[in-house]
């Protein structure tokens, strides 16, 4: 009991600190990668390669003036940043980030809380984040902020369905909602990584998580050009900073989730050395490196997409969510569930590379047909009529 308490407290402190540092560096990474993509250099003055820029920004935000709109709902206005900030950080608690660490007192799971309902916990807290945004938008007593908040709630609700649906397939394969078990199930070979048997599901999850994290091309709640800064238009100093931190920690969690659910979590591909006991310090370090690499790639991917794609129009966003993503996720779930039932119950296959590759073949068939059909003006309705038609 003491061991559990002590190890948990240490894990909480270490993970929280590491997460905050990563988020800080992520703000810098975003600005520098954006600059490179635009043939600029980006902030490189504070510290070597600008590495201390986040510290300078943080300091600035701490000493800046806090503004409080006169007509704002004071309590909710103060509370909203915390409400969006805390769930964003909490979700990371159930994500396993390395193989267990051996200590003289027993093995320590490299996850802050190895919840049996880990995945449901993530969905629950993921949807709590929208409260912060909606409350911020409403309590500011500003029409732009309110519009941002309304957009955020509509968007999050629409895409949460597709997000949930796409992950049901993962849970069907794993037969469990504990993230450690989901990862253990994927560590058999490279092809048992869920991205192969469930590639379309991964695609849906990817798009939906962009919408859930309010990142471009789905950043309609902020939409500088239309809503100034949307829900956080009235915020300044540290309260504004907290929305920022919330956005980036949502990004980290979404990336870690993609890694865990679809890319084998901390599993090192092509070897089973890392995922079998006895656990050693080296294994923990290597698997953590693997996890960090995968998560880092998705973080880069988030930034990459943001500086490539323009923002959706609001009706396009809604059409994509309800007319494409939801039916797609539902159909996909039906097909995959039938396929799993057929392979597992009828043919009696166990879950291995053969099983996964068969499903992968099915995914490729589905993807080719779907993309050929969907990619012709159905995914996103163009803003102009057909050539020769009325605009």
């Amino acid at each position, binding site marked *: 009991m003491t061991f559990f308490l002590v190890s948990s407290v240490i894990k909480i402190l270490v993970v929280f600190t590491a997460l905050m540092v990563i988020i800080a560096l992520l703000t810098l990474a975003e600005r520098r*990668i954006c600059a490179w993509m635009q043939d600029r250099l980006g902030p490189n003055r504070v510290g070597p390669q600008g590495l201390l820029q986040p510290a300078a920004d943080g300091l600035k935000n701490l000493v800046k003036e806090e503004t409080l709109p006169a007509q704002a709902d004071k309590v909710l206005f103060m509370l909203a940043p915390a409400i969006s900030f805390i769930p964003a950080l909490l979700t990371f608690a159930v994500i396993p980030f390395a193989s267990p660490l051996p200590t003289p007192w027993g093995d320590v799971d490299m996850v802050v809380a190895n919840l049996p309902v880990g995945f449901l916990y993530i969905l629950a807290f993921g949807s709590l984040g929208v409260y912060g945004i909606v409350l911020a938008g409403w309590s500011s007593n500003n029409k732009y902020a309110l519009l941002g908040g309304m957009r955020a709630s509509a968007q999050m609700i629409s895409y949460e369905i597709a997000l949930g649906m796409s992950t049901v397939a993962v849970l069907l394969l794993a037969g469990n909602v504990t993230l450690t078990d989901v990862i253990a199930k994927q560590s058999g070979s490279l092809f048992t990584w869920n991205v192969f048997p469930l590639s379309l599901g991964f695609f849906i999850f990817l798009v939906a998580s962009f919408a859930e994290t309010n990142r471009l091309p789905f950043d309609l709640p902020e939409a500088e050009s239309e809503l100034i800064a949307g829900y956080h238009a009235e915020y300044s100093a540290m309260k504004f900073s907290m929305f920022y931190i919330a956005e980036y920690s949502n990004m980290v969690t979404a990336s870690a989730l993609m890694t865990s659910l679809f890319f084998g979590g901390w599993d090192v591909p092509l070897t089973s050395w890392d995922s079998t006991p006895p656990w050693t310090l080296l294994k923990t370090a290597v698997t953590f490196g693997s996890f960090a690499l995968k998560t880092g790639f998705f973080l880069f991917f988030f930034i990459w997409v943001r500086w490539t794609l323009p923002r959706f129009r609001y009706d396009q966003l809604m059409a994509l969510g309800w007319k494409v993503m939801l039916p797609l996720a539902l159909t996909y779930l039906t097909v995959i569930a039938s396929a799993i039932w057929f392979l597992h119950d009828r043919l009696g296959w166990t879950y291995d590379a053969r099983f996964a590759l068969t499903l992968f073949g099915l995914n490729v068939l589905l993807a080719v047909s779907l993309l050929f059909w969907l990619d*012709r*003006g159905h995914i996103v309705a163009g803003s102009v009529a057909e050539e020769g038609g009325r605009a």
Partner: protein
Amino acid sequence: MTIGVKVMKRPGAEASYVLATLKGMALTFSHLWRPKVTMQYPEEKSSKEWALSPRWRGTHRMLTDEQGRAKCVACGLCPQICPANCIKLVPGEDEQGNRYPLIYEIDEFRCVFCGYCQEVCPEEAIHVGVHYENSEYSRDRFVYDLERLCAQTHPVSSLWDPSDPKGE
């Protein structure tokens, strides 16, 4: 249709957005390694692509003769021609009848940097300079007096290219 406007063929309903997205991502990714156009300003003030023009008209400089005195003879042409009325000149005369400025001040905040003072000066005394780093801690430091104008060392503007005075 307006003359000279190029009308792009718009994608209709049959456009492929997935393909276009992938193309765009490949493009932004390739830009990550392209040469950057940023100039690291305080360290790097000119590059092959960009340098300050010799015709740049910046803060003034008063040239001096061999004895270190200002070349100005206080003729009064520069305050006369100055469109911004930023030059204050009080002429003085010594025992030999040589005129010299008792007070010569230029308010750099009023100045519009037209360069007329340099053009009109018969003694080639007052010049606008090739210089642009002028920050000060207080507003009154921007009224340059004679001593300060003489102490400037930056190169002076040629206003036009001497080999091509009409800009042809």
